[in-house]
């Protein structure tokens, strides 16, 4: 490999937060993903936050079309992609004006000078060149690089058209960023070969652009030194970088293998859940069958059909799609068939903010069906945790014969982090039994109960156990249609008790910090990283603050009420208007204060820290 060792000074820092921002067509997501992987391979802890518009190709050069990718890499354990930026790379004026507020004072601003011209100013609706404002030079370390020109020169020998040549400029930017943060070019060079290897001249041009970017950093006088972030001290093991939706998909496949079942995935494309489909459909050789249905309703119904047949059945969507699935989920619940329903939440209501994150579907998950229809609800706390939650969801679904809802969100779905690769052989199997005629009473009772109040999962093809299921209320035991008043009460209570009993067999809720104190911060789902870091910061500031993060939302662990009562004040941080807070108050009669945000963005650590610390003053 060509030497990529700098001869300039190197400054060692504990962590860097960088954001890459450009037009949606500029390849910023690719750049960000590569920087993340390379940093993870260097042993850093990493956390990412891709942020892109819902439009596939929003009008070029406009503010609406800006696509960004933020990554924090660190020599310490981190849980968020960072609040403020140490470095910001902008490819055009629109990217600069929409992102600059997050760059810290004294931070590095790298601008593609060639993207700053009259045409672009007009598109970005700026009066004059924002780079020329004196405040910029005074506040930040501005480095202007004519990336387009330099890239064209670097790739000129490959005889590509200007359009294609210009597309290489994200690799030039990448090379420069890699130089600045002492990253190895090797993983990206490998990636270029894999991705573009078949088009030789494109691969060669991208490689040349990458190297030219690196060389520019090494030679330009604008940079006196580069930065180095040492490897983080993570738990020993083999790691890889993983995204939330990918981890969910892998967790589902793993659960199918652990239960010796083929996986049937019925779904309808919707942002930000579609990547689960794209991932799963690659693994047909694991016995995965994916079905892209005609609509959300057909998607969930197909999974209920597959579950009736004895498969591991899963559907996924986001809020609007989950709303459409509600009636069928109620059927799955009363049929008492095991099923996983994934909601990768996004900003709502209605179509809302498809590419932005929010946690506003908790009450929908809890109550969004007609009638008394409780179902277990789980929420992963990070991209890697999606793997474990998928397995846990299937374990619970089969144990109590019920649809289980997983509440992920856009933030962890698209975010990534190092994942300690699961040791498949050490994962406990998921025991699933289908009765045979021989082990049942002479008259088969499809709605008889075991110790978990689950009914037998008898599947078509089994002689002697023919039975009919349906959405009309069933008679206890026989499952025959029944309008008997007392029976309806009994069945309603039984279905409720079945879900409630899960609390007896899930781990007691643990907390981070002291077991009692002034403030307990409660959170759930994808806000874990920011909440954990904020509580840590409060603790470092000498405050008696602890953190309780819920992964089980229905039922909650048995000790949740008792934990909350040990604190003077309970605060609930969530990206909605107070949905978990409502549940906690009504279930436990404990008063809670809300920290609520609905801006389509995750919490920053500093805003949480401020909220907690100001509450401590009152």
């Amino acid at each position, binding site marked *: 490999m060509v030497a990529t060792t700098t001869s300039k000074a190197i400054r060692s820092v504990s962590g860097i937060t960088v954001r890459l921002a450009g037009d949606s067509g500029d390849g910023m997501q690719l750049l960000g993903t590569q920087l993340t992987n390379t940093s993870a*391979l260097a042993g850093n802890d990493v956390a990412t936050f891709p942020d892109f518009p819902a439009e596939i190709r929003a009008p070029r050069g406009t503010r609406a079309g800006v696509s960004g990718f933020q990554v924090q890499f660190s020599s310490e354990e981190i849980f968020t992609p960072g609040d403020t930026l140490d470095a910001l790379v902008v490819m055009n004026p629109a990217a600069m004006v929409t992102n600059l507020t997050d760059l810290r004072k004294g931070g590095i601003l790298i601008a593609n000078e060639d993207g700053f011209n009259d045409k672009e100013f007009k598109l970005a609706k700026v009066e004059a060149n924002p780079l020329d404002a004196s405040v910029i030079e005074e506040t930040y370390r501005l480095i202007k690089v004519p990336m387009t020109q330099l890239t064209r020169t670097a790739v000129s020998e490959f005889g590509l058209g200007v359009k294609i040549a210009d597309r290489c400029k994200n690799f030039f930017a990448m090379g420069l960023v890699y130089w600045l943060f002492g990253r190895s070019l090797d993983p990206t060079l490998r990636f270029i070969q894999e991705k573009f290897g078949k088009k030789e001249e494109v691969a060669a041009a991208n490689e040349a652009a990458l190297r030219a970017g690196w060389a520019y950093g090494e030679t330009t006088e604008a940079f006196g030194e580069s930065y180095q972030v040492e490897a983080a001290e993570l738990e020993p093991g083999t*790691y*890889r970088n993983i995204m939330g939706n990918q981890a969910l998909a892998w967790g589902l496949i793993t659960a199918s293998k652990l239960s010796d079942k083929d996986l049937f995935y019925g779904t309808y494309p919707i942002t930000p859940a579609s990547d689960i489909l794209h991932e799963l459909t690659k693994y047909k050789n694991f016995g995965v069958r994916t079905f892209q249905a005609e609509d959300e309703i*057909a998607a969930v119904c197909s999974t209920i059909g597959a579950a*009736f047949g004895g498969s591991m059945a899963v559907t996924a969507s986001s809020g609007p799609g989950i709303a459409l699935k509600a009636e069928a989920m109620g059927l799955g619940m009363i049929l008492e068939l095991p099923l996983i329903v994934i909601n990768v939440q996004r900003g709502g209501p209605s179509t809302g903010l498809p590419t932005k994150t929010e946690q506003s579907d908790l009450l929908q998950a809890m109550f969004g069906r007609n009638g008394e229809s409780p179902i277990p609800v789980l929420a992963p706390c990070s991209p890697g945790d999606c793997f474990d939650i998928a397995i846990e969801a299937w374990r619970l679904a089969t144990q109590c014969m019920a649809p289980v809802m997983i509440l992920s969100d856009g933030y962890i779905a698209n975010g990534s982090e190092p994942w300690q690769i699961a040791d498949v052989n050490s994962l406990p199997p998921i025991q699933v039994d289908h009765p045979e005629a021989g082990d049942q009473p002479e008259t088969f009772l499809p709605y008889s109960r075991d110790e978990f109040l689950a009914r037998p999962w008898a599947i078509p093809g089994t002689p002697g156990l*023919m039975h*009919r299921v349906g959405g009309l209320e069933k008679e206890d035991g026989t499952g025959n249609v029944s309008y008997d008043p007392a029976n309806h009460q009994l069945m309603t209570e039984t279905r409720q008790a079945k879900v409630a009993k899960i609390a007896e067999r899930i781990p007691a809720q643990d907390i981070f910090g002291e077991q009692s104190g002034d403030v307990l911060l409660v959170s759930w789902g994808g806000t874990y990283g920011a909440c954990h870091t904020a509580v840590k910061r409060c603790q470092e500031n000498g405050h008696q603050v602890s953190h309780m993060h819920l992964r089980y939302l229905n039922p909650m662990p048995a000790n949740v009420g008792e934990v909350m009562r040990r604190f003077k004040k309970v605060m609930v941080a969530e990206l909605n208007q107070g949905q978990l807070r409502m549940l906690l108050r009504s279930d436990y009669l404990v008063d809670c204060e809300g920290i609520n945000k609905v801006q389509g963005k995750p919490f920053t650590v500093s805003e949480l820290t401020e909220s907690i610390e100001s509450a401590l003053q009152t």
Partner: protein
Amino acid sequence: MNLPVLKASDFASDQDVRWCPGCGDYSILAQMKKILPDLGFPREKTVFISGIGCSSRFPYYMNTYGMHSIHGRAPAFATGLKSTRPELMVWVITGDGDSLSIGGNHFIHVLRRNLDVNIVLFNNRIYGLTKGQYSPTSVEGQVTKSTPMGSIDHPLQPLSVALAAEATFVARSIDAHVKHLGETLKRAAAHKGTSLVEVYQNCNVFNDGAMAYAQEKKQRADNVIELVHGKPLVFANGTKGIRLVGTHLEVVNTDEVPADDLLIHDEAEPNPSIQMMLARMSYPDMPEPIGVLRAVEGIPTYDEQINQQVDTAKELKGEGDLNQLFNAGDTWQVS
């Protein structure tokens, strides 16, 4: 292997049938129970899936596996089941409201996918279970509880919809024409791919006699054509026939035209144009066809293909290995 010989009564569940006395559904249930033993297929491998409506109570009365699902969605449940358990024989029981109003989307998509299931569409041209509102097959001007001044909707023709959705098997029969009904159901069961059988079913409470022209024996001969593959289209005891003129069909007196002029029915023709013309013939202008309009064999089924892809992937890549998957690509060690 000696399979037990089953009788119609073996397919009856222990539940009391609760349709209105005189309902056409009884006849369809009876014919289903009668033909199933002839198919020689194990009861435990037979599944009935229905939506919502009077007809959709059907699975409760069959001693097989069954699911009474939600309104309009039966084809979607069937798709999940049949895709994962292709060895099962799956029947979808639906009505005109269930399949053409609330379930219209699923109805066309199951047909175009050619999932190997049999759909029996009970068409009574009315909403029965909700007590008498007009349905998507109710005739224009029909006065019902929800259309006191007459319906202003143009009705759908289930068979035309099915043909437009690329269905590979399309047929029609009549509740009161029991022998024909039984034979048609058998043909549907034998077809590989989605079979659609529309059954004219009398709702004697809310739409009595709406299709009497076809149901009553006396009127049937003049108003109904029984399609027979390879045979000319004749009705009215052979006195009348159908001739193709340009792009439309017309009724002729058989003694006034040469026999060669009559249209010969070809259910196996892949081009559905003439079958579509047959589907659009409607009383009182034309006789209405019953029997198999279309039966195109050899088209791959959805369930067959989804499973083939799994087999192919296993052949090409080998049985999936989780450890291999997790450790592929960029990984690093922390010690």
